[in-house]
């Protein structure tokens, strides 16, 4: 080897402007990200606290007093509203938690776990409003369940006069929330235990328990669950917080007299009588208290459960009717999946149904009319949904990537405090700060509706995008960047040519998730947009109560199709990439 392929060493060049700009940008990003999350939430909270105590300059009220709270207490049915909010969230959270555990315990060692994960996955991105509409269609007296069972079992020739959905006890709400929370909790848990090191440890412990004679489900509860519960806690608290203050589900499935507190607050806020805004603000603070007490209740339940079970863990009992429960769970799983399938099927039927008499299970006449007329009206909402989602998701993805790049360059992860701030919009009920945010934005720039709504969406999109990207970014082998730097690549070049291409699929996944979160936002769009900016979701919710069931079905389906399209595009890109790679490998082998 006589030839030298090394040229003369170059002189060290000066740092280029683009590289300097990039490093400044990276340094600035975490601060901007924090500010975007903290300022609106804190500003919004302030904008609720002040009016709650009587200070509302727009109505010439500048004296602090407790009138708002007094009005609130005098509202008929207030206790029922509060109880409905509290119990529907805690019961649905509990149900989702128990079903998740039982599913995990039944299928921990079975290929069915991955299959159930795949089946339930898509539900995660179905907007709450669409899910609520689907469930309403399922359980209504003229819904799919009643049609399937009539008349051969029930003897009904016409729909019975049952108050379903909208039942006064909130059972419909609980059902809707549980069905929506279950996939979230299951998938969050599965992704947490998918980390290779933890997963192999858990599997080994599980097998060890089996070898000691523990029955499979008991082995899961005694050997695996204590190790994974800490990873489930945050997702549980997130669903509890969300459920306690959610608006779409109770609006579509809940009772009207009285509704849940969150729904009542929205009604007061939108009342023509502006002085009701004081009552609404006081209600928003009470709502915050409800959420906090739901979380505290969960914490107490956790303590009690721990105290009861800590001794049984080591009592040596190896079987708690395992075989019976496992059989029951298998039947339940079939029931669960057919319920979901039936809900979806019912909605598709309604959207194409012409003449459809009860108790026929299928429409007698199929028409395209509802789709045709809806598609004519839905264009503007679709464009609005898409543009808001694209703006908020791109900002969220770029900010997240830059913040994670800052983490990498700095060699340390975000502090616990900063991570907590990222979860803030997931934990604080949006109704508690959105009014304040509206007031703040109206004061600052009233006419920029599109920007205001996109900013509000960003608050909810950012945590999900960050959560989904952080795992992959932090898992990148840091040596690639070190090698690239030792080869003379600037941080900017490393970021664009080394890190980003390796993260292509995670970035696309996070973007699809961001789009889905933005598509599903109801309250921020409604409140911040002030009704001037209609999206598919706001249209679907307002149509759900009142308009024809057929139109409503079309809107709910369009709502589901938007995120579905986003995710199938990702799927196409990743299969295309895999195929290309496989092809390359193949031609190389034959060389």
């Amino acid at each position, binding site marked *: *080897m006589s030839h030298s392929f090394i*040229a003369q060493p170059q002189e060290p060049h000066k740092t280029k402007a683009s590289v300097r700009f990039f490093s400044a940008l990276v340094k600035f990003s975490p601060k901007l990200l924090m500010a975007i999350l903290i300022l609106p939430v804190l500003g919004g909270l302030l904008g609720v606290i002040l009016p709650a105590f009587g200070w509302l300059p727009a109505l010439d009220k500048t004296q602090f007093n407790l009138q708002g709270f007094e009005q609130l207490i005098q509202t008929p049915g207030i206790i029922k509203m509060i109880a409905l909010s509290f119990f529907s969230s805690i019961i649905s959270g509990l149900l989702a938690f128990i079903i998740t555990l039982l599913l995990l315990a039944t299928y921990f060692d079975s290929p069915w776990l991955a299959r159930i994960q795949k089946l339930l996955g898509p539900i995660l991105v179905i907007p709450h409003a669409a899910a609520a509409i689907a469930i309403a269609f399922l359980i209504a007296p003229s819904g799919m369940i009643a049609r399937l069972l009539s008349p051969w079992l029930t003897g009904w020739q016409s729909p019975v006069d049952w108050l379903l959905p909208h039942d006064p006890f909130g059972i419909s709400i609980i059902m809707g929330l549980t069905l929506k929370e279950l996939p979230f909790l299951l998938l969050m848990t599965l992704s947490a235990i998918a980390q290779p090191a933890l997963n192999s440890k858990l599997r080994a412990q599980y097998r060890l328990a089996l070898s000691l004679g523990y029955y499979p489900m008991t082995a899961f509860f005694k050997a695996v669950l204590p190790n994974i519960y800490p990873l489930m806690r945050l997702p549980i608290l997130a669903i509890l917080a969300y459920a306690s203050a959610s608006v779409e589900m109770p609006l579509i499935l809940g009772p009207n007299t009285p509704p849940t507190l969150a729904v009542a607050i929205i009604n007061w806020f939108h009342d023509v009588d502006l002085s009701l805004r004081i009552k609404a603000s006081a209600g928003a603070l009470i709502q915050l208290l409800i959420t906090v007490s739901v979380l505290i209740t969960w914490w107490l339940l956790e303590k009690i459960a721990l105290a009861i079970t800590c001794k049984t863990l080591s009592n040596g009992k190896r079987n708690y009717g395992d075989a019976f429960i496992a059989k029951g769970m298998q039947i339940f799983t079939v029931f669960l999946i057919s319920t979901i399938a039936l809900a979806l099927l019912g909605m598709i039927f309604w959207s194409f149904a012409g003449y459809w008499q009860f108790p026929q299970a299928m429409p007698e006449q199929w028409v395209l009319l509802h789709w045709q007329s809806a598609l004519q009206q839905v264009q503007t909402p679709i464009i609005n949904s898409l543009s808001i989602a694209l703006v908020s998701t791109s900002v969220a993805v770029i900010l997240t990537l830059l913040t994670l790049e800052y983490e990498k360059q700095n060699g340390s992860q975000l502090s616990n405090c900063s991570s907590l701030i990222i979860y803030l919009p997931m934990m604080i009920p949006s109704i508690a700060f959105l009014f304040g945010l509206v007031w703040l934005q109206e004061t600052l720039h009233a006419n920029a509706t599109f920007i205001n709504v996109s900013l509000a969406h960003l608050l909810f999109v950012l945590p999900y995008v960050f959560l989904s990207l952080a795992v992959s970014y932090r898992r990148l082998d840091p040596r690639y960047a070190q090698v690239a730097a030792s080869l003379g690549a600037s941080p900017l070049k490393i970021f664009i040519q080394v890190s980003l291409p390796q993260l292509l699929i995670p970035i696309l996944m996070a973007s699809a998730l961001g789009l889905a979160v933005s598509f599903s936002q109801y309250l921020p769009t409604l409140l911040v947009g002030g009704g001037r900016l209609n999206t598919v979701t706001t249209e679907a919710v307002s149509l759900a109560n009142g308009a024809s069931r057929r139109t409503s079905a079309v809107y709910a389906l369009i709502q589901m199709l938007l995120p579905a399209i986003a995710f199938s595009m990702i799927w196409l890109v990743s299969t295309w990439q895999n195929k290309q790679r496989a092809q390359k490998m193949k031609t190389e082998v034959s060389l």
Partner: protein
Amino acid sequence: MSPTNEHNSLHIENLTISRDKTPLLSLNETIRGGEVLTIMGPSGSGKSTLLNWLTGQLPKGFNADGKVYLNGINISHTPSYQRHIGLLYQDALLFPHLSVAENIAFAMPKGDKKARATKISFALAEVGLAGLDHRHPDSLSGGQQARVALLRVLLSQPKAILLDEAFSKLDSQLRQETRELVFEQIKQHKLPAIMVTHDESDAIAANGKVINLKINQQIN
């Protein structure tokens, strides 16, 4: 120092690396172009930390005091990517999203596209990898990947080379061949090199000074 001394040399001056105020290692060395300094020692003795400091990527929690001169220029505070110190790990770490030729092109200075491609093909042929330009790195054998990684470093025109257990994942036959190739290139290009290794045979093959680090030299 005379100019000949300054040319092609890596000089480490009064270096002390400590972790949480516990001194980890001290070093005072000059490596001339073409020479390989071998550093041996058990894990935890700070071998890799030394290399990290040299490339300007000292991890959090470590403190370093001292200076490093490359060809007579103090680069102690130069950012990693402007130091021109090449790095070879035990894994080839070829970028999985780039082809063999693209991996090498990534490292080369900007220039005429055609000239770069010719240079890459030529360099690949030199190390017995003719015609593999457009292959995906994953389809290469371990030895082939190691040679591509070496070419990638060399064509980035480094002024010094660091070897971090660079041969430890290769089996003995391949290990000897790759090692010979690397040392030959280092000599030919008169590059100062530091090699961190566990393996005695690496140290013997390097035919240079050997420093044995002990674990936590805690003499307060």
